[in-house]
């Protein structure tokens, strides 16, 4: 009876242009941000910033943060927060350090053990949040302090009174797994590129950039895997659904609890991975490791288009969010500006990103 009534709605729709379609991608803001920041530094910074070694210089901290940001972004899309991720880096660093130095375990045991402890703690976070129905914000805030404190106490026990545990580098020396988590990858390729004159070399002929730091490869790989999971697997659909509306999702048969607990575990695992990489890189672990990283990771995720309310965002966005972060932190040293502008810049970016995301959300949902 109303066949005609239902099909005529089309006449009121304008054809959507390419621009409008692009506007609907959650990562648009982050990509625009990367372009903006790059332009800014191209104008103001020393030209060495965008040489190969300059790029590696800012990509390394970007990657370390980015690994956390991708975890945080997935958890945020799933509708939860984890404020304990920075403390998790310190705690996992302690576990890892204790495993290799104090217990003298090989990496093949130490790494899975560290990851397992982190995943277990992530699951504890998740179970408490889901069992009690309390906001994850407050539960993980408690773990922010608990884990930071535990790192301090544990470090003193493991090192005999100091808050730093040294000797990691010697302990992992020669371990066959070490190249996966520390140093630079593709060394021979870079040496060859230097030989044929494609990349800059020092006077003695060794390349200025000996390879790609492994964390950058982990970072890129994780961003790709996370994006694939979010966009192409049922689990990805469940993550969006759990964050979008918990009740609607579980009424449709989505295992919301499992999804959320897994996300807490993934986030904790990301923290542990960063811990392993940075501890092996530095050769020691200390209680301040990962300090404030929880906020930076959330900021990178928000710049990447994640909504604080959940159900919307992207891993690629968080990827670019972290790159913006790295560029600003390191980039300012290439300019004449005082480095302390960094925080002002960051707060400004965050504010713009939130306003922008809010606007995008209204466009997507057609809210007015």
């Amino acid at each position, binding site marked *: 009876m*109303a066949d005609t009534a239902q099909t005529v709605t089309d006449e009121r729709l304008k054809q959507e242009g390419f621009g409008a379609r692009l506007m609907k991608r959650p990562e648009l803001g982050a990509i625009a941000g990367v372009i903006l920041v790059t332009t800014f530094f191209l104008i103001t910074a020393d030209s060495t910033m965008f040489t190969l070694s300059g790029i590696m210089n800012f990509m390394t901290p970007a990657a370390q943060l980015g690994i956390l940001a991708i975890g945080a972004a997935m958890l945020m899309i799933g509708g939860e927060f984890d404020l304990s991720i920075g403390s998790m880096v310190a705690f996992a660093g302690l576990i890892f350090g204790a495993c290799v130095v104090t217990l003298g375990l090989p990496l093949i045991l130490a790494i899975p053990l560290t990851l397992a402890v982190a995943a277990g703690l992530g699951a504890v976070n998740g179970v408490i949040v889901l069992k009690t129905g309390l906001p994850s914000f407050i539960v993980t805030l408690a773990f922010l302090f608990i884990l930071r404190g535990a790192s301090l106490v544990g470090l003193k026990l493991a090192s005999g009174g100091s808050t730093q545990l040294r000797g990691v580098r010697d302990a992992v020396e020669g371990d066959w797994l070490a190249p996966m988590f520390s140093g630079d990858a593709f060394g021979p390729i870079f040496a060859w590129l230097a030989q044929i004159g494609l990349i800059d070399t020092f006077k003695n002929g060794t390349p200025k950039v000996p390879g790609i730091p492994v964390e950058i490869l982990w970072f890129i790989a994780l961003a790709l895997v996370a994006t694939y999971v979010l966009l192409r*697997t049922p689990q990805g659909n*469940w993550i969006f659904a759990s964050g979008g509306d918990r009740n609607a*999702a579980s*009424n449709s048969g989505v295992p919301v609890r499992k999804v959320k607990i897994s996300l807490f575990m993934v986030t904790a695992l990301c923290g542990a991975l960063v811990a392993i990489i940075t501890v092996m890189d530095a050769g020691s672990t200390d209680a301040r490791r990962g300090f404030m990283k929880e906020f930076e990771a959330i900021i990178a995720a928000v710049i990447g288009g994640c909504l604080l309310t959940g159900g919307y965002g992207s891993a690629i966005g968080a990827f670019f969010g972290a790159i913006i972060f790295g560029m600003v932190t390191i980039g300012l040293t290439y300019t004449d500006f005082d480095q302390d502008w960094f925080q002002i810049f960051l707060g400004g970016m965050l504010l713009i990103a939130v306003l922008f995301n809010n606007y995008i959300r209204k466009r*997507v949902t057609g809210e007015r």
Partner: protein
Amino acid sequence: MTQQMTEDTSFHHGSPQDAAKPIIEMQNIEKHFGNIIALAGVSFDVKPGECHCLLGDNGAGKSTFIKTMSGVHKPTKGAITIDGQPMNFDSPRDAMEAGIATVFQDLAMIPLMSVTRNFFMGREPLKGSKPFRRMDIEMMNQTTVEEMRKMGINLRGPDQAVGTLSGGERQTVAIARAVYFGARVLILDEPTSALGVRQTSNVLATIDRVRKQGVGVVFISHNVRHALAVGDRFTVLNRGKTLGTAQRGQITPEELQDLMAGGQEMAQLEGSLGGTV
């Protein structure tokens, strides 16, 4: 449409469907919550291809009853049979597997997600082999657009967010989803209560379409006009009991209205309200 209401015209009451066996039959269902008797003996059945309206005022027990039917509550007393076989639902999933689908008022839709992702939420089709098993996005998009077209809605694209659809369209997505996933009985909880006139008529048209595919529809409403527009049979609930079932054409809107209100004050109110309810 008002003309059609009381006359038996295009709708198939009185057709062979009458002889058809009910898909689901609920006999003398009682449900007690502690010392509160929410349902005190309700009998109800749904046949394939009919729209059976369940009417009742607020607090009559409609919600409790459909929750019993969809496996959310277990009845305290009474029998549920499906295709003549006694059934015992332990969870909504059991009911779903038996082909009883419920579209609740919140629709179980997520506004920020695309129509496709909502359509297949929790039941994503897969392709590829184990390590690279992934959602079959192409098939999902095609199916969604096609199923929605069947229901008379032309989507801008399968990636259109559900939030951009109107209330009636969302209702239709929820119905199309249930039907696509093999619902034999479709329970609609007040599908028209929050809709405007135009949207209501769209949803009623959707109900008619679904019924023609042989699905049994349970239409819960407290709006007599909406019920009479599509219903084949009408059962009125009052204070946890059924006040009887009437066939299309055997009952007037006024009689239905009186039954819903318990048969008393309505007659007096009617005059002063001028038939506006």
